[in-house]
């Protein structure tokens, strides 16, 4: 009974999302076909796929009508007598050459699209996308908004995933900080990763590019409609592979400028002074947030880790030692990634938090200590 009622909730949410009741936020969803294309490239891919589907269906119908005709007519129960021929050079040459011609016809438009997809020159905005377990980092490298940098991660609450709350229409497709780009501008996306391979996939843009640790790859898009578009990580990247969505907001040029200004002010306000001495409660409060955002996925809210995979922090010797923990956080080791990208304040806060939670009691760390430990 419980399962059925939960299921009904899912159904209701689904119906809402499909009928568009939930509003423009989920306008771009498809069910049977490729996502409605929002860029010239996605458009070309969409037509290519239609072309392929038509040609393949035609061949399929042609070949299998012959087969089913034979099955119908040339059966022993209908008194069919088997012929004895078993080769015909002309026919065999014909059905080798014709597919060859069809394949060439298919390849020509595809070639044009491949070349267009690879042309990342003359971009008006360049954004670096960094995949990491299990969130996306966005750095605006060149163009309006240069210098903006933020992380983007899943905003769906755990309660929805675990079935304790009703799922909303954007279930698993919502993030805290979406990527914002201007409409009708060529955006070059440079992908890389900090731990394992991820893939940045935005179906409506026809963009999928692996993010490979230690290497930079690039792709591009020019969104021709304003709206919110949703995608997901496409390369298996560990346990929360399904939980690192991508949301892109395409906005008008004016709205984009507004967003850039707002974001810059916000970043300036958030910038912490690493030389200030922080109090223990300040560090603990900040540390808890940093822990939830970055550490909890592996080491768990309980600090107990997952046996055999992720070590417990409760009672950990590394956590108890100041020097070892600082070195581990900055440099990483095996499955533990380097957290250099976090600020000194965040690192000091999370370090203090782990040193004083779950029964640990190992003093506090100040941002200056991390600053000093960085070379």
């Amino acid at each position, binding site marked *: 009974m419980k399962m059925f009622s939960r299921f009904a909730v899912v159904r209701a949410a*689904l119906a809402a999302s499909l009928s568009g009741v939930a509003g423009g936020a989920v306008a771009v969803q498809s069910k049977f076909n490729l996502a409605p294309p929002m860029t010239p490239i996605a458009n070309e891919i969409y037509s290519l796929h239609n072309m*392929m589907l038509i040609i393949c269906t035609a061949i399929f119908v042609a*070949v*299998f009508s012959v087969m089913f005709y034979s099955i119908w007519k040339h059966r022993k129960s209908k008194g069919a007598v088997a012929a004895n021929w078993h080769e015909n050079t002309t026919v065999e040459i014909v059905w080798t050459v014709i597919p060859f011609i069809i394949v060439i016809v298919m390849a020509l438009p595809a070639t044009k699209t491949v070349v267009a997809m690879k042309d990342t020159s003359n971009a008006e905005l360049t954004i670096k996308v960094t995949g990491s377990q299990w969130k996306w980092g966005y750095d605006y490298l060149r163009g309006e908004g240069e210098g903006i940098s933020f992380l983007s991660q899943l905003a769906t609450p755990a309660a929805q995933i675990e079935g304790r709350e009703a*799922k909303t229409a954007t279930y*698993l497709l919502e993030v805290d900080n979406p990527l914002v780009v201007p409409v009708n501008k060529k955006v070059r996306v440079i992908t890389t990763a900090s731990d394992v391979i991820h893939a940045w996939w935005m179906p409506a843009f026809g963009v*999928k590019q*692996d993010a490979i640790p230690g290497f930079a790859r690039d792709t591009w898009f020019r969104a021709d409609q304003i709206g919110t578009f949703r995608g997901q990580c496409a390369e298996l990247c560990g346990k929360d*592979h399904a939980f690192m969505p991508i949301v892109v907001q395409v906005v008008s040029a004016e709205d984009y400028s507004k967003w850039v200004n707002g974001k810059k002010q916000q970043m300036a306000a958030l910038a912490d002074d690493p030389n200030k001495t922080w109090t223990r409660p300040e560090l603990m409060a900040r540390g808890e947030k940093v822990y939830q955002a970055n550490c909890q996925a592996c080491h768990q809210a309980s600090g107990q880790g997952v046996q055999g995979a992720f070590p417990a922090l409760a009672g950990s010797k590394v956590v108890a030692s100041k020097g070892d923990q600082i070195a581990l956080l900055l440099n990483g080791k095996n*499955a533990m990634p380097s957290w250099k990208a976090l600020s000194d304040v965040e690192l000091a806060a999370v370090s203090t938090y782990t040193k004083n939670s779950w029964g640990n009691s190992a003093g506090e760390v100040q941002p200056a200590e991390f600053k000093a430990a960085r070379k």
Partner: protein
Amino acid sequence: MSAVVHTPTAGHADHAHDHPHGWRRWLFATNHKDIGTMYLWFSFTMFLFGGVLALGIRMELFQPGLQFWKPEFFNQLTTMHGVIMVFGAIMPAFVGFANWQIPLQIGAPDMAFARMNNFSFWLLPPAALLIVISFFVPGGATAAGWTLYAPLTVQMGPGMDLAIFALHILGASSIMGSINIITTILNMRAPGMTLMKMPMFVWTWLITAYLLIAVMPVLAGAITMTLTDRHFGTSFFNAAGGGDPVMYQHIFWFFGHPEVYIMILPAFGIVSQIIPVFARKPLFGYASMVYATASIAILSFIVWAHHMFTTGMPVTGQLFFMYATMLIAIPTGVKVFNWVATMYKGSMTFETPMLFAVGFIFVFTMGGFTGLILAMAPIDIQLQDSYYVVAHFHYVLVAGSLFALFAGTYYWLPKWTGHMYNEALGKWHFWLSMIFFNITFFPMHFLGLAGMPRRYADYPLQFADFNLMASIGAFGFGFTQLLFLYIVVKCIKGGPKAAANPWGAEDGGLEWTVPSPAPFHTFETPPVVK
């Protein structure tokens, strides 16, 4: 053969049927039929095991949200389902068929290296054991996907090492099996059986065996590099140490693409044996079938990077691999045309082997077309790592390889057991498999097109309907295979006596010239082929 040496008192009349008894018969087996039987039972066991893992996947995906598994265990399920089905079920099953049928079809008394044959089989159970044990080590089995991409593999626990060792052992077994098959085919054919008179199943296996010898060492190299990256401080695939994670993918797929043909070429062979027998008409275009098989095998070495279009290759690389991949459609098309032409103007009956063979052509061709669609680099970039790909390779691997294995089993079961299976149940097995297969995998095309990535433990609500449908189909498909087990066991235990040539095959191969069940020793004096 040792079997003969140990039983000197056997009467001459019984000689052909005499064999050691009890466990020695199997542990020390050197008889190709016994070893073939063991291969088939092993692969069926692994098939059920891999199937249970698949049902675990479909259970979790029945509806959105996490209900049964944690995502890390879900990833173990998808990974091990792939590894077990590819290396534990499909590949050994075809080797089992090769063991049983190749000597019978070419008129050889046994495989060329009987003791190596024993060893290549008995390597399999330890490998399977390592795979099973890996679920119980800290961190569980490897969860890096069956493709075992670096650097995710470096994060895995000891289950990864067990998987690597298991693959090494399975690879060694495959290489030995291939050497045996090639040597047997090239040296032990009956007088008069020239290469171009060999049955198609033998031809496809000859080509497959060469593929195996060429690429299994490449896989061994890739996973050994993974092992040293994990434990001995090397950086083959670690950019920070001067390596390249994408190099792993190149090496893996240089193995992986020929591998998919390793799993389908013998299936082509089986279908090419069955269609002419039940159409009562010789195989159309025998020579072009051989050339098409060889072309597919050769092309399979130059298309590997079509699995990697999204890694960001240079434009020339993308175009080369796109064109090369599209070319494969041509020889594959020739095969399908030949099968249809064989059926045309035949006098067909539709016993279970024929049903599965015709079903194979129909459904496999759909997988072939989605393969052609995926070959187009721009479309592939949209669909790579989505459920469309999952649909595609299940259409060629389940509807392709597995259906051909079922077809072959029903076709040769009378020869193996001496009994006819229950035809009505066989037909039920076919229709249920066919229907549930399509309920399971057809909706996955839609899921992939609409944007659902593969290897996801949970998914957005827009994908709920088709996942529900796929899960229902999967359970139906899974339980249908228990019917297959029942049919086979029932057929082994009894049933109507099978004639030497139960299908009335006119030109079906030498296996139909020996009695059913095939005696323990056959063709001790070689038959002469005209």
